[in-house]
């Protein structure tokens, strides 16, 4: 029953020859990869390998010096995070960007509330929130009445992820989603990544903890000193090989 979920269809996101430097520091050099709808890609690398820079380029915070980003084959030029969002890329940062004093419905529809004239259509916001939560198997989370600030780290992460679904994102980037979570909460976040995948989204999970993502990713992209050291399918690689790539890069592998 080994499932190789990498679809053969056209890539959702295609990154070709991306480079980025800050002054004389070359943060990324000629990075290229694809990701298909319904795929979970783990982006791995040591501190300073270029993971953050790559993600910031994909989410519109930095402009790439060279190279091309395509979504569904259409070349993109991101001048701001809003551009990336409009292209269907949503990033869940470690700070989660939640309003802790408000409930799930208010957070899911933050800035895009259903309204009737100047009034909030509370019923609709709550009903739509329930639908989104249930679609992600998060039906146990209360859509209204409980501030997200009193929820656990994993639940908050789930709310932040659910919001990307509300925004209609096709590619969801999760920046170290399990960094602050325990083992069981981390597993739930990974399950959530699978729910996203099963609903046809593509997911990029950034991590420096191979253990946590090993079971959950379809492919591993390893950055080493700003270069892509390698991309491997899980079915065709070993933990040892990935560790080798993370630590030594492509040269020694």
């Amino acid at each position, binding site marked *: 029953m080994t499932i190789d979920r990498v679809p053969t269809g056209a890539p959702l996101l295609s990154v070709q020859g991306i480079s980025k430097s800050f002054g004389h520091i070359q943060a990324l050099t000629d990075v290229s990869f694809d990701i298909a709808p319904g795929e979970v890609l783990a982006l791995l690398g040591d501190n300073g390998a270029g993971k953050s820079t790559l993600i910031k380029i994909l989410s519109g915070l930095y402009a790439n010096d060279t190279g091309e980003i395509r979504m569904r084959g259409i070349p993109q030029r991101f001048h701001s995070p809003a551009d990336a969002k409009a292209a269907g890329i949503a990033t869940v940062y470690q700070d989660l960007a939640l*309003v802790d004093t*408000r409930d799930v419905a208010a957070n899911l529809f933050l800035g895009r509330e259903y309204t009737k004239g100047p009034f909030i259509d509370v019923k609709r916001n709550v009903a739509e929130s329930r639908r989104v939560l249930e679609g992600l198997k998060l039906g146990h989370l209360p859509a209204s009445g409980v501030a997200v600030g009193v929820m*656990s780290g994993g639940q908050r992460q789930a709310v932040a992820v659910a919001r990307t679904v509300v925004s209609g994102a096709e590619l969801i980037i999760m920046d170290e989603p399990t960094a602050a979570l325990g083992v069981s909460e981390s597993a*739930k976040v990974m*399950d959530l990544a699978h729910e996203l995948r099963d609903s046809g989204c593509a997911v990029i999970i950034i991590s420096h903890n191979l253990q946590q993502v090993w*079971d959950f990713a379809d492919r591993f992209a390893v950055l080493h000193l700003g270069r892509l050291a390698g991309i491997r399918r899980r079915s065709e690689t070993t933990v040892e090989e990935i560790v080798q790539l993370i630590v030594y890069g492509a040269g020694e592998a």
Partner: protein
Amino acid sequence: MTATTVAQQGTPPTSPPPKPKSDPIDRILDVGIYIALGVLVIVFSIASPYFLTVGNLLNIGQAVAQTGILAAGVTIALIAGQLDISFGSVIAVTAVLVAVLTGAGLPAAVAVLGAVVAGLLVGILNGVLIVNLNISSIISTLAVGTAVTGAAYLLANGQVIPLPDPAAFSWVNVRVFGLPVPMLIAIAVYVAGWVLLAKTKLGAHIYAVGGNSSAALRAGIPVKRIYYTVLVISSSLAVLAGVIVLGRTGAGDPSYGAADMFTVLGAVLLSGIGLGGGTGSVQRTFVGVLIIGVLANGLVLLGVQSYYQQLVNGAVLVLAVVMEAIRRKRRSR
């Protein structure tokens, strides 16, 4: 690998869904103000037979109307994360400006319009300092408030300026259906404030901006515009309070508003709103306003010297701040 099986199962069936609950201490503090108000009412009605009479309750209503209107504005701004303490100066400048302008022969309506413009300018000036120059709201509104108070004194030449035609503002002292007009205005302000905060998109954005301004900004909410809006609402309500004071006293006195600082802040902080932003409601502030009003009224009925009243006001403020500190400590897990 075991991976695929885990993946196919989705969420592990064994784990019972953990339902997040609000903190128990939080809930006690939440109902605490209602209990406090109830206790005060009971104590004063036992201590003074006059307390629970219609006449006295209307006195309280009349007395808290001004505090209440101001506190509503402060609450709305504070929910957005901005503490606006310039309201006292707006009262002073409103009263003096209207007195001076009507004294110069302008009709009352035009003079009030002048005060409204002055109030808008104060709100906008607060906004420039807070939003554009990134200075903390308490410092900005303290500075603006001090300058505006100074301007009121200059305008009045340090004098109390009597209205040439107090009849133009006598509507303030009229009773409608037996209720004083300022009380009705205050009730209208609270209903409007509740609708704004609880029912409208602007209200939802005010909470969002106060709760997490960077998240609000990333969600496309016009954060700066929201800050300006709440500051202008706050200063406009202070103009309204200023007009009411003017009607009640028949004169523009630049020292108006100075005494309101602590009753208003006390009422707002008693509501448990906290200084962090993103929480609170005008309903809860209303209860805070009533506590302060009932306390002041009851102490007078009991014949307590006014210096003691100030002491009590200070103690209440300390209590409110301590409750907030407890709450915040429990929230930062």
